[in-house]
């Protein structure tokens, strides 16, 4: 992955998309092969150290801390960062990106709607000022309108220069925002190309875009 680009991993159920993300963020250990960030092998580090290096995952299924408030959730996202003034600055940026979260600042995260929880999960990850943001199925279980708004946000983050690895079932949307894509099938990369090229690819269209 190059700095500042959006790369998407697409593939069916059980293709190994989430496993790939979890391995990158250190929640799982690679059996073989290695994961490198600026020539450093991430496989040698524990999950919390990888976060401190700037690789932050937004886990699948909007897992927010339900019994903490929105603000507390966001503050937890900045757990690895020492400087309070910088954290406050990032908090402002997150609130600019998600004005909705500002409105709900003191509400318990568990009482937010699904879309708001997804925004919160993304906001929380952004609080760590990630170099690379790993997004796991951000559109899962959301109404189409909300899916659009989540993808808008991904575009905005891209415009701000964040490097993003996006795992998605919704291949159509993913290929629209991404620069490049990898197609994963039962743990193997079967295809890789520019996102625009993948969209035109016949077999991808058949298998993942529902074009007959």
């Amino acid at each position: 992955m190059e700095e500042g680009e959006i790369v998407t991993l697409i593939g069916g159920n059980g293709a190994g998309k989430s496993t790939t993300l979890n391995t990158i963020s250190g929640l799982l250990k690679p059996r073989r092969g290695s994961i490198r960030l600026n020539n450093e092998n991430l496989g040698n580090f524990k999950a919390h150290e990888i976060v401190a290096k700037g690789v932050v995952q937004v886990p699948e299924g909007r897992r927010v801390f339900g019994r903490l408030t929105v603000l507390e959730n966001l503050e937890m996202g900045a757990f690895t960062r020492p400087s309070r003034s910088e954290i406050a600055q990032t908090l402002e940026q997150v609130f600019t990106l998600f004005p909705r979260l500002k409105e709900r600042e003191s509400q318990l995260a568990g009482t937010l709607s699904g879309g708001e929880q997804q925004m919160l999960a993304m906001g929380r990850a952004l609080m760590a000022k990630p170099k690379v943001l790993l997004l796991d199925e951000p559109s899962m279980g959301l109404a189409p309108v909300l899916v659009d708004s989540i993808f808008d946000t991904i575009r905005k983050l891209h415009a701000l220069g964040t490097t993003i690895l996006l795992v998605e079932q919704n291949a159509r949307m993913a290929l629209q925002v991404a620069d490049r894509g990898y197609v994963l099938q039962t743990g193997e990369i079967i295809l890789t190309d520019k996102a625009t090229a993948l969209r035109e690819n016949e077999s991808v269209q058949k298998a993942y875009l529902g074009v007959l």
Partner: protein
Amino acid sequence: MAPLLEWVFSGKGLSVAGALAIAVIVIASEVLGNRRRTNARNVTAVPITPRQKQMRTGALMALLLIFPLLLGTYVSEVLDQVGLYILMGLGLNVVVGFAGLLDLGYVGFFAIGAYAMGMLTSPELGLASLSWWTALPIAVSITILAGIMLGVPVLNMRGDYLAIVTLGFGEIIRLLALSDALRPWTGGSQGIQLIAKPVVGTMVLDNQLKLYYLILAGCLLAGFISSRLRDSRLGRAWMAMREDEDVAQAIGINLVATKLLAFSVGAAFGGLSGAIFAAKLGAIYPNSFGLLISINVLALLIIGGMGSIRGVVVGALVLVGLPELLREFAEFRLLVYGALLVVMMLYRPQGLWPEDARKLEAHEDDGLSGDSSAAPAGRIIEPA
């Protein structure tokens, strides 16, 4: 004051008339309090000024200091026991309430604290005859070490599995104390006698009233440490871990260190409680450290409000204090426990006096595991 006391207490327990009078007062205040609370709900809460808060704390402290002086030995004894349970409750609250690690063998730390104190101070065993105060830091350190030793093997365990292993831990400690192999050190079924009493200046703390002040000091210290930890970075990490271990890890929390610190702090408070307990009785036996203590401590957390420091105090008063006073109904104690727990879970799952933030939520409380994602949707109960 004295005739009133005689009327309320007869012999070793409450008189029937006294019990009725107390019940009426409690119910009346609860009903009136409820009415006032309902009214107050429509009014914006007036924030308490720091000065008012200071005065309240001062008044409470004064009350705590003179209370047992007025009420005599029997009440002091009850308050001592409540205090020891508050100490244990504060410790378990860190482990279960803050960090969400369900520990059913908490009595193990209480036992280790008590036995360490016994072994270090009793001349009977001939191991060491330290003074209570010299032995205290050693006993607490040993308990912390035990906390870490329990913590390491269970690092990767969650929920039910953790509960079973800790349950075993508590029993293992009791059985070790009872075992013949360790008799030279633990005294086996004979236990340890002649345990040193704490001495302050020239005064030996050898009765319930004097020990009350020691226990009070211990509780205040543990309460202070708890509240500072709760609002610290570590406290936040504990709560994140309680809510969702995977996400906690994904936002950069070191789970190993965070878990072990929770076990250590919990163990330290339990060990302190055990060390005071040993001195209070002067003798300890393996059977004083049964499973029931673990259950009682956990029950008082649930009653008071999981994760709530003031809840621990309320829970201990209710679960330990009341049955002590209601000696005459002692046989029904466990029945009352069970009934109380069921009623609590149904009508007030957040506990009698939860933390403020917990009151705001829709109570999709799931009891012990702290895993809110596992709670079925739609189980919403209005706050009482």
